[in-house]
């Protein structure tokens, strides 16, 4: 510990004013403050400070995502060997190793590209490097299908960090959730890769079992109105445990629930957003159930008739609600606003999912939509407060 500190002190002069790498000070600073929370004391205002900082907040979110990541790796292996028809002969470790071999490169690419851009912008703008990307960098691989080429991950990340975040001024200033921006970019730029049934399961180009289908449950529902196919009849248990095809992190509702517990117990994420997203989704589900008979096609009727509560365990509702909707920067910032923000995410997410088969995953679009509307929601909440004050003033002067 002392030795590491001495090492930092030894190389520091190279990065400070006049040093040969002075331009790279933000990079040095990022590494030093990563290893050591600086010994700065409060110089103005309150003399004691809370033990929490942005790094701790962010690392709590990463911790919450870990179960989904680990399960996602295992499931990638499971789906792969299942498609090849040899899943029964494989050990737990085989599945994990295959999954890690597929997933970890995506994590590495996401972090390397994203942090690289953050470092460049920090050097150009001469500000310290923010921790925001630590979470985005983990979210991006988790919302991608496993078979996406690494260069697409890289390009999506570049788009998300530059257009989604840095052009607005970096962490804390962005309007859209960066990880979802990456997902949306990949989805619209490479639609043939990001939809359909080829990309969710890695088959490695090998021979697959008869009747194999790599489609997700949402994909099936949109095309046939049935959750399962002849290849695999997905039931409630599979949806909850997560042994189904899908984006890497979204499949296991149990892993996501674990993450949600961590976020809620530590108070890092807003329970309001999560709870009201569920209320919104269930409301929309109930509406669909009630009006299923008016559907325009038998497939849509079957989709609309899916029991309302199942929408919470199908697709990415759970993952998006727990990890994406609760992003404090792009979400509503007032406590009242969070209620409406959460509600409409759930509501529109299910609506888009069912009504628009071209975009089977409605949650992504619903959150991006509500990201844009969050400032408007906050505006009306704050306006209400202002009106109360104006009214009080009028009453006092009357």
């Amino acid at each position, binding site marked *: *510990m002392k030795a590491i500190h001495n090492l930092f002190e030894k190389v520091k002069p190279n990065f400070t004013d006049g040093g040969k790498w002075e331009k790279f000070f933000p990079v040095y600073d990022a590494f030093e403050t990563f290893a050591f929370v600086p010994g700065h004391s409060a*110089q103005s205002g309150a003399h004691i*400070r809370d033990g929490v900082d942005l790094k701790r907040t962010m690392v709590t979110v990463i911790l919450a995502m870990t179960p989904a990541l680990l399960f996602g790796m295992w499931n990638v292996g499971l789906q792969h060997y299942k498609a090849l028809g040899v899943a029964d002969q494989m050990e737990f470790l085989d599945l994990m190793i295959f999954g890690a071999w597929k997933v970890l490169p995506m994590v590495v690419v996401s972090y390397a590209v994203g942090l690289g851009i953050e470092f460049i912008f920090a050097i150009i703008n001469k500000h310290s490097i923010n921790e925001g990307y630590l979470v985005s960098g983990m979210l991006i691989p988790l919302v991608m299908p496993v078979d996406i080429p690494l260069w697409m991950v890289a390009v999506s990340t570049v788009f998300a960090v530059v257009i989604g975040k840095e052009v607005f001024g970096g962490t804390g200033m962005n309007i859209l959730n960066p990880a979802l921006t990456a997902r949306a970019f990949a989805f619209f730029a490479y639609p043939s890769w990001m939809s359909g049934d080829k990309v969710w399961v890695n088959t490695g180009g090998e021979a697959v079992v008869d009747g194999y289908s790599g489609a997700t449950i949402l994909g099936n529902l949109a095309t046939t109105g049935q959750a399962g196919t002849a290849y695999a009849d997905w039931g409630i248990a599979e949806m909850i445990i997560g042994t189904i095809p899908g984006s890497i992190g979204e499949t296991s509702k149990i892993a996501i629930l674990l993450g949600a517990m961590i976020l809620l117990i530590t108070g890092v994420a807003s329970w309001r957003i999560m709870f009201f997203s569920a209320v919104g989704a269930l409301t929309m589900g109930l509406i669909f159930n009630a009006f299923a008979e008016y559907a325009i096609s038998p497939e849509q009727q079957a989709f609309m008739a899916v029991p309302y509560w199942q929408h919470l365990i199908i697709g990415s509702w759970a993952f998006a609600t727990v990890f994406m909707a609760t992003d404090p920067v792009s979400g509503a910032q007032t406590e009242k606003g969070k209620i409406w923000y959460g509600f409409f995410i759930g509501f529109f997410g299910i609506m888009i999912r069912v009504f628009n088969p071209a975009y089977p995953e409605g949650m992504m679009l619903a959150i991006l939509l509500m990201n844009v509307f969050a400032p408007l929601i906050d505006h009306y909440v704050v306006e209400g407060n202002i009106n109360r004050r104006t009214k009080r*003033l009028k009453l006092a002067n009357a």
Partner: protein
Amino acid sequence: MSKDIRIKRGLDIRLKGSAEKVLSQAPDTGVYAVQPTDFIGITPKLLVKEGDQVCAGDPLFFSKDDERVRFSSPVSGEIAAVVRGAKRKLLAIHILADKEQKFTEFKRPDTGNRDGLIDLLLESGMWPFIRQRPYAVIANPSDAPKSIHISCFNTEPLAADVDFTLSGSEEDFQEGLEAMKTLTSGKVHLNVDSSAPVNSLFEKAEGVQVNRFKGPHPAGNVGVQIHHVEPLNKGEVVWYAYPQDVVAIGRLLRTGKADFSKVVALAGHSLQQGKYFKTLPGTPIKSILDGHELSGDHRVISGTVLTGNKTDMDGYLGFYHSEITIIPEGEQPEFFGWLIPDPKKFSNSRTLPSWLQPKKEYALDTNMHGEERAFVVTGEYEKVFPFDIYPVQLLKSILVEDIEKMEQLGIYEVAEEDFALCEVVCTSKLPVQSMVRKGLDMVREELS
């Protein structure tokens, strides 16, 4: 028409090192200092020069904006030094105290003579005790305040116990309270803590409204109390004073002497045992600390850990402060400090284990535990900010210097002390109190 008010949002930070309720007399020899920087928004104009002799109660300087507002020497003696900083800014006037204290005699006005009372307070240098919301600055003697609020308890960590500081001064307090009633045609509010037995001094008081408050800090802040009793509108003015200041005013009326002495708590876990001292504002901290051993690097604070001023061993007690708090400096880098769940750290968030032990007393130092960042986390200020005001939105309107928005969002109802907890719990380590002060100054300048 007393009110019972329950404050729900807030935070009591339990710190080690509270002062034992034992009163000592501080040695009153040495050099005292009056620091114009204690008075927010004042441009001082000096009235004395080095070598002058002054009595206790004689003016040292006045406010450039209002010549009636004068600031007096708390002791008699010789002006030892006039300390100036950059751009000749007046920082302090040092007075070498006489062995025998001499007081200027003031004449008491008739009971109920408001103008006479104001003149007396202005002349004696006791006027600065009367402050006003909005802006939390010295009151304008020409204003007619809607009411006067006196917060009879302090909920800040390691704050001086108000009941203890008043014991023995009951008559002076009552006399001072009469003066407060003379100063306003509205009500005088005594805001008391209903979670503890209420001092009979406050309950017996006649012709005042006693409001009973219950809840965590900042329930003891006068700004919170005004907000919950009668929220301040644009154009309205409410005056306020601390209980010990009311005592000093009562003493002036009873004796005709400007005796500024007050009871001050010496606290903080850097000390083996804190206790209370009877002393004067501007007293050298060293004289109080005599006999206390300190090793290592410590932060000497005039005031409390939340709102006090940073000073050092050679510093002086501030005019409005009733505490001297000493805690260790925290200038050690923490190896992976953001990762390790250190049980010695305090956090209002539940990302550290401190929430599992709500009753634990902490020995906190001055470390920031992180670096400044943009606003990211939402909802954390609101948990410790018991106002019907959106704190982050108000701060953002201050950052963009939008005065109209500040007014709409309620800047008249707050002062920096009300935001002290927001600053403590801030994940992004933003200098919230100085931001609020900047906003208040901006609005005050605009409207003057």
